Each structure stands twice: as C-alpha cells, then as structure tokens.
C-alpha cells in the first residue's frame, strides 16, 4: 500500500519537484548537448581521416619517384597526384586529379570522382562563389559541369599557401578534375606524391628520395591544412569540456543536496512507517521511487533535448571546421553519461539521507519536524544588538550553512558562465581591434618571392618574416621590423616602446613559452630546422597570435641576410607590384573579419552555456527557497498568527539566501578572472592563438542585471506563496 506514497508526495509538492527535475534536466541537457556536439565532431573528423585515407605525408621530387619500390620497402601506399593551379580575376582554384588509395574525396553532394568534362568543388568555395550542382564552371576557354561538392582529408583548412593564417573561400578553393582534362590548360600541371599508412623511418625515406631530387617533404603534423583544423578542434574541446563538466557537476551536486533535504523533509512519514513496523528495506524501496522518478523524468528530458538540439549544433561546427560527417555518429557513451551521471548524484544523495534517517530511532524522526535540520551552533550566537527579524534571519541562515554554501557556489559558477557569455564576444572584438587597428597600422601586407633592397615604394615599409618553432613544436612567427616602425606600433607592458635588440614576445606567447624579459630561449628555424638562441629583450602588449618581434637589422644578422634587405612590405595602401614578385598578399581588414568568424562557433557555444547557466542559477535559487519555505511552514504559520507581515516573514526565512545569492554573484567576478584565463591557457596550448580575458564591466553589469531581475521575479513568486499561506492551516498540518 505504501508504494502509493511517492506519487502522492510528488503530486502534492509538484512545484518543488518540477524545480528539481529542471535542475536534473539541465545537468543532462548541458552534458549531452555540448559533449555530444564536440565529440561528434571529433569522432567525425577521426572517421573522415581514417575512412578517406588521410595522408601521412606528401612530397615533391624533380624526377619521378620509384613508387613501387618505396611502397615495398616502407610498407606504405604512395600515389601520384597532378595539380593544376587555375587563376582568374582575383580568384584561384587548385585542381587535383582523383586518387584511389590516399586522400580520397568525400562527396557532400553529387559525385566523388569526376568524369571527363566534370569538375568537383569544395563546398566552401562553391557556396562563397554561388555555384550549384549542374552549373557550368569555366576555366580558360573550356567549360566544365559542376558534378559534386567534395571534402578532401588533406585540405580541410583550405588555404592557398602554407603560410596563410586565414582561409578565404571567396578567393581560393580546391577541386577535382579528370586527369585527361588537365592537358587542355595553358598552365602546366605539376606532380606530387601522397603517402598513406604509417611511415616509421622518415629520415630513411627522405634519403631514398634524394636521388630523385627531393624538393619538399611535408609530414601530416607539419601540414597546416590538417593541423590547423586539429588545433581548432582541440581548442574548442578545451573550452567546452571543462565548462560542461562544471555545469554538470554543479547541477548534479545540487540535486545531491536537494534530494537529501527532500528525503529528510519526509522524516515524520518515514518515522511513522518505522514505528508501525515497516522494515528499512521496505521504506527505502518505497521512498527511492521519488529520486527514481526525478532522475528518469529529468535525465530523459534533458538527454533527449540535448540530443535533439545536437544536430543543429553539430551542423554549425561542421560548417565551421569544414569536416564532413561521413557516418552518422550515435553518441552512445555521451548519452549514457548524460543520463546516468545525474542519477549517481541523485541516488547517492537520497541513500545518504535515508541512511542518516535510519540511523535514528523512530521516535526521533516522529518528533523532529522543524528546527533540527540545521547546525545548533548558530542558535548560540550572540545577536542581541540586532532587531528580531535580523536575528531570526541570521540564525536561520547560519544554521543551514551547508545548503547556503551550495547556493553560493552554484550562483558563483552560474555568474562566471554568464559573465563569460556576455564578455567573450566583446573581449574577442576588443582583442581583434587592439591587434589589427592599434598595433598593426598597415592595411596590406605583401610577402615577396625574393629578398629586396632599397626603397621602391615610398609609402611602404620593409620587414622580414620567419616561422620558428620551439622544442614542443609550437610555432612562433618572428617579424623583423624597422626601428621606429610606423606600421607596427608596439608597446611593452609598461606602455613604452619595446626593446627590440633581442626578441620581444607577444604577451600570450611569452606565457606559453614561459619566458620573461632577460631569458634566453632556443627556437628552430622552420626552413632548415637550425636551432637559434635568442635573448628575450621585452614582452609586448599584444593579445592575439604567436608573434615575436626583432629589429630588422638584427633579424638580417641572425639569419645571415644582407644588411638592409627585406622580404615583405607593410603598406597603408594597395601597392602595384608585379604579381610574379608577390609570394603572398594579405588584406588586414579581411584577416580581422575572418578571425572574428573563426570564433563564431565558440561564441554560439558560449551563448548556449550562458542560457543554461542562467536557468541553473534560477533553478538553484527557486528550489532551495521553496525547500526552505516548505521546511518552515510551521514557523511561518506561527509568525503569521503573531502578525508579522509577509515581507518580514520572507525576510526572516529567505533573507539569508538572498544575501548568499548576491555573495555568489560577487564571487563570480574573481572566479571568472581566475578560471577564464586558466581555460584560455589550455586553449592556447592547443592552438596558435593565445587569448587573454578580463572581466569586462559591461559584461559584469549585464550578467548581474539579468540575474538580479530574474531572481527578484522568483522571490516575488515566493512572497506570493507566503501571502497565500494561512497561519491556522499551516499549524494544523502538524497533525496530519
């Protein structure tokens, strides 16, 4: 018969149960949505790389390579590929011949292997330039039919040059074309080889290729078209995972506490059943239906919602990362985690509470209604100088410190996430502005194909550029700039012009390399792997990028270049340089806007996280306040009969929680400042970008404002509930 009790209790206190179920649903929802999203992408990428035979390395030789011999010797697959670079107006398309064993094309739509007269395009280029399936694509005087949109596992991050930081699908893309169609074009296709399968002896392989005139050999780990995506994936995961885990743990921990209190609030009923002769096992089985119900409903709702919303979420990432989902990824592990994780906390909380109750004599449970739920130490506090309501409020709150601590921690974490959400976009924007407007004053940057001397363009300023790497393989982009450069305005941490006699590191790079002014660091030249020792002469206030700066003449000396020579030009205006002399050209405005776009998925994730954290904060406040009201019904009844006003009663019973809520909000700021840069440091470890966040006053105000307004609404609703309570009725309840 007693099996009916749980359902009746749930029905009687439906509002409170809805609150608890919401928290459980939030735990499951945030876990499923974010982890499924990130993991689907990670698994999607792994499946794409493996199913479509991503290369191990690629190489170019002057003469044909002995493929069969090398394949046998190194137990790898080698395949020749022809490449045609087609240029028209300001656009360029790199067209490959299809391969059969390595770097297979994956069709998003249409075909994955072109027939004669057909061309397959990468989806980003096609979208940016408005090509649809069946459209005509003209190269020179020949027309091809667009027969498919394809992803290539070796060209995930589609940049024209290895040095390009940002991809630009409007101006550059890749395609596939039948080998027989390549001969029609005036530009001669060139040949290179791709290697599939694990290659253990790279040095031996390279030595064997020397006889064929090895021009270049690029391993997968050095291929920016692959590694950039992998770094971005890892960076996104590094941001999302700890936050998701934090949210899941907060909400799960909260359910642990709430369920404990909830079971505890049923102690008179449990005591009665014990007194009647029910065994502990029978009582436990009955009352565990309550957490079971909360868990099943909350976790099912949360997991299902998370799973349903994963699709658009993943789609957003897929477009951003340019990774095809080659097979439907069913996230069994994440779904099970999202479903079971809150369950563990719910049941442990309930069992813990039941164990505590069962340790008592039935009489103690029958007697204990209110007042014994908190710490008795609070009742011995000397609060004589305070008014009666303040005394009651403080005693009431201090006697429930554990619960209020949960409230403080929960609200602080929610505030942190909200500030993050409100600040991230502006911080990123600010960093982009600082970097690309205040520091880099040029609008165009040209990297030339050979070293230059003398001043050929009066408005431009010469510079040199070299990519280096440290012992952990982290890239450092070193600029040799002119003394008193007008194009790059650097400031050190004291706001002064930096000392460029050694290398001056951008602030996040210095942190990443753990280097300070005066240190000597060793970096390797990416061109020839030669190690070079540099003295760190300064650290500059620059928040984006792995940039380092050195005086141009010092640069030339270190790299044994002629005095006064330069390889690049910074210019405030577009320069008319013979295209054949330009190796790479960058438009700063475009870089800036693309950088912002690059952060889009992170921003979207942050928006979702902010929304969830807001719901979480309010659910915490609502559930704990409701619990407080329910536990203090008798006291409220007595206070009402005494003639206290509803506002005073709310102040006495919930006033301390309000203080805790605001303390939690305030603690959110140092928590943000402390945690966000730890998070960003882990992102920086994974990517070539190092970001630095600081709690921004506008973001803080927004976060506080939204939280305070909604909390006020919750309090108002609770006050109305107190208003509706009848003192006499509340006292009579004791006899039920």
């Amino acid at each position, binding site marked *: 018969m007693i099996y009916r009790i749980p359902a009746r209790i749930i029905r009687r206190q439906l509002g409170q149960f809805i609150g608890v179920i919401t928290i459980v649903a939030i735990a499951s929802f945030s876990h499923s949505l974010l982890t499924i999203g990130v993991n689907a992408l990670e698994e999607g990428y792994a499946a794409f790389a493996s199913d479509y035979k991503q290369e191990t390395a690629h190489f170019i030789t002057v003469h044909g390579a002995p493929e069969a011999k090398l394949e046998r010797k190194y137990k790898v697959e080698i395949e020749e590929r022809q490449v045609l670079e087609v240029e028209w107006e300001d656009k360029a398309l790199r067209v490959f011949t299809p391969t059969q064993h390595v770097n297979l094309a994956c069709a998003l739509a249409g075909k994955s292997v072109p027939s004669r007269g057909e061309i397959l395009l990468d989806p980003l280029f096609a979208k940016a330039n408005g090509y649809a399936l069946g459209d005509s694509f003209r190269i020179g005087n020949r027309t091809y039919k667009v027969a498919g949109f394809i992803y290539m596992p070796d060209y995930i991050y589609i940049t024209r040059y290895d040095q390009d930081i940002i991809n630009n699908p409007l101006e550059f893309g890749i395609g596939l074309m039948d080998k027989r169609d390549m001969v029609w074009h005036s530009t001669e296709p060139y040949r290179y080889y791709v290697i599939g399968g694990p290659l253990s002896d790279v040095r031996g392989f390279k030595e064997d290729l020397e006889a064929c005139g090895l021009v270049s050999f690029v391993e997968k780990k050095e291929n920016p078209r692959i590694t950039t995506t992998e770094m971005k994936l890892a960076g996104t995961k590094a941001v999302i995972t700890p936050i998701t885990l934090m949210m899941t743990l907060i909400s799960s921990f909260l359910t642990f506490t709430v369920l404990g209190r909830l079971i505890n609030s049923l102690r008179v009923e449990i005591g009665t*059943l014990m007194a009647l002769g029910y065994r502990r096992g029978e009582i436990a089985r009955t009352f565990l239906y309550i957490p079971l119900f909360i868990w099943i409903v909350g976790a099912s709702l949360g997991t299902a919602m998370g799973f349903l919303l994963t699709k658009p979420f993943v789609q957003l990432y897929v477009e951003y990362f340019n990774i095809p989902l080659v097979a439907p990824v069913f996230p069994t592990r994440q779904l099970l985690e999202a479903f079971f994780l809150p369950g563990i906390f719910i049941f442990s909380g309930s069992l813990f509470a039941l164990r505590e109750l069962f340790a008592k004599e039935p009489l103690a449970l029958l007697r204990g209604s209110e007042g014994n739920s908190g710490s008795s130490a609070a009742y011995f506090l000397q609060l004589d100088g305070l008014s009666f309501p303040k005394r009651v409020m403080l005693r009431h709150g201090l006697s429930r410190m554990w619960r209020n601590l949960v409230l403080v921690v929960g609200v602080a974490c929610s505030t942190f996430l909200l500030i993050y959400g409100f600040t991230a976009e502006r911080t990123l924007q600010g960093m982009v502005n600082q970097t690309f407007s205040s520091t880099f004053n040029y609008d165009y940057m040209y990297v030339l194909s050979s070293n230059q001397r003398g001043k050929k363009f009066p408005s431009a300023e010469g510079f040199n550029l070299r990519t280096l790497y440290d012992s952990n393989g982290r890239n450092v982009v070193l600029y040799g700039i002119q003394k008193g450069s007008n194009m790059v305005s650097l400031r050190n941490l004291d706001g002064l012009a930096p000392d460029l006699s050694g290398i001056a590191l951008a602030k996040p790079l210095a942190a990443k390399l753990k280097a300070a002014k005066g240190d000597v660091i060793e970096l390797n030249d990416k061109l020839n792997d030669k190690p070079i020792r540099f003295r760190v002469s300064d650290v500059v206030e620059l928040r984006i990028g792995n940039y380092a700066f050195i005086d141009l003449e010092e640069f030339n000396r270190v790299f044994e270049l002629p005095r006064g020579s330069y390889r690049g030009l910074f210019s405030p205006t577009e320069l008319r340089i013979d295209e054949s002399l330009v190796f790479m050209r960058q438009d700063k405005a475009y870089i800036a806007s693309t950088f912002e776009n690059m952060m889009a998925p992170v921003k979207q994730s942050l928006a979702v996280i902010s929304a969830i954290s807001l719901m979480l904060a309010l659910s915490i406040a609502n559930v704990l306040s409701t619990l407080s009201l329910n536990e203090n019904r008798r006291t409220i009844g007595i206070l009402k009969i005494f003639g206290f006003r509803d506002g005073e009663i709310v102040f006495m019973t919930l006033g301390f929680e309000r203080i805790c809520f605001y303390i939690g909000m305030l603690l959110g700021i140092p928590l943000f400042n402390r945690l966000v840069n730890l998070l960003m440091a882990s992102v920086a470890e994974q990517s070539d970008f190092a970001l630095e966040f600081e709690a921004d006053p506008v973001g803080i105000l927004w976060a506080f404002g939204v939280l305070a307004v909604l909390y006020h609404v919750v309090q108002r609703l609770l006050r109305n509930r107190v208003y509706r309570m009848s003192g006499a009725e509340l006292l009579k309840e004791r006899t*039920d």
Partner: protein
Amino acid sequence: MFLEVAGLKRIYTVGKTTVAALDGVDFGVEKGAFVVVLGPSGSGKSTLINIIGGIDRADAGRVVVEGQDIARLDAKGLTEYRRNSVGFVFQFYNLVSSLTAYENVLATAYLSRGSFDAGVILDLVGMSDKKNKFPFELSGGEQQRVAIARAVVKNPKLLLCDEPTGALDYDNAKKVLGLLEKVNRELGTTVLLITHNTAIARMAHVVIRLRSGRVVERVDNPTPIASEQVVW
C-alpha cells in the same frame, strides 16, 4: 506475566544538563488487561510507552513482552517486534498524509498475517463512510479513529495509546475511549493507555501513577466502569 517492566531507566542529556525521564520503573501486567498510566507532564509517561512500543531505547532495565526482553533487541529485532506485536496510537495521530483513511489502515494490515479486514475495522471505528478521505480532510476525532483502526487492524498483542484523547473534544474523546474498550473486551488485546486525565483511570484494570520517572502508585481495579460512564 504478559508485560514486565523492571528497573527501567532513560536519561536525556541536553547540553550539560541530564534529565532522568525514567528512573527505575517496575511493574507487570497480565494479558488482556486495560492499563492506564497516569501522571503529570514530565513524569515520563510518553517515554515509558515509547520504550515499551520499541520506538525508543532504555538506558537500563528490562521490558519483557511475552517472555522476550525487547530492551536487548537490536534495530532489526525491534522492527520485527513493532511489526508483529505492537499497535501504536499517537497523540497527534501521525497518519501518513499521502494515504487515504482506508489506505492508512491497509498499510498496517499488510504487515501482519493475522490482520483483520481493513474495511471491517474502519466500520468498527465508524469511519467507513469517510474511508477515501485524506487525513487533511478529516477532523481531529476522525483522524484519531482512523489511527486506532490502523493500530488495531493488524491484531496486535499490545495496543499502546499515547494520550489518544489529548487533542480531542469531549464527544470525540468518549468515542475513542469506547473504541479502545471494545478492542480490549472483544478482541482481548492488552491496552496500555497513558493520559493525565484521571477520570479515564476508572475504566482500567490496572492504574499506574508515575511521578518524576518513578512509579508512585499501582492500583488494581477488579471492577472497571464502562467507557460511557466515564465523565470529566
């Protein structure tokens, strides 16, 4: 002897103060007796009945019920004792608020093999017309009648009543006393009732007076009056 209490002590400690709620209580009761324990507030009546009922523990002494010393039982043993031997009627009824009157009785009937029919017992206490009502829909007297039905339905050897009329008006209190008398006379159940209402003592076979945790008087009454004759 059906119930034998010997040297029973119970000491409560609050802060630095210790209070002996029971300070060596001794008495014995034969099976089928109607026993009334009288005493002022703080005399230890409730503590005594709680220990005999197995919902509280003694610090010293024996409580032997049908040859079994329940003071020596562990938590499991006490549960079985409460389940099989005792019916409890509380001053504030302690009905399970989420079960109807009928379900409250049924919940106890489930516990014992020799239980009576829940419907019959509810009829006996005059509550069959309100059997589907929840406790909050019943008056105090009605709730206490359901509480008696709940205690009686499992046909306990010992019915313990803690101030069963304490929260009731005169008419309802008389009805409840009538019920307890009926249970005692018709079912042969040993009833131990605590009260501070001396008038009720006249319907008991044995009256025990407690003061400051000790038995100060025991009166055996061979001619108890019927409950209808009890007035106060």
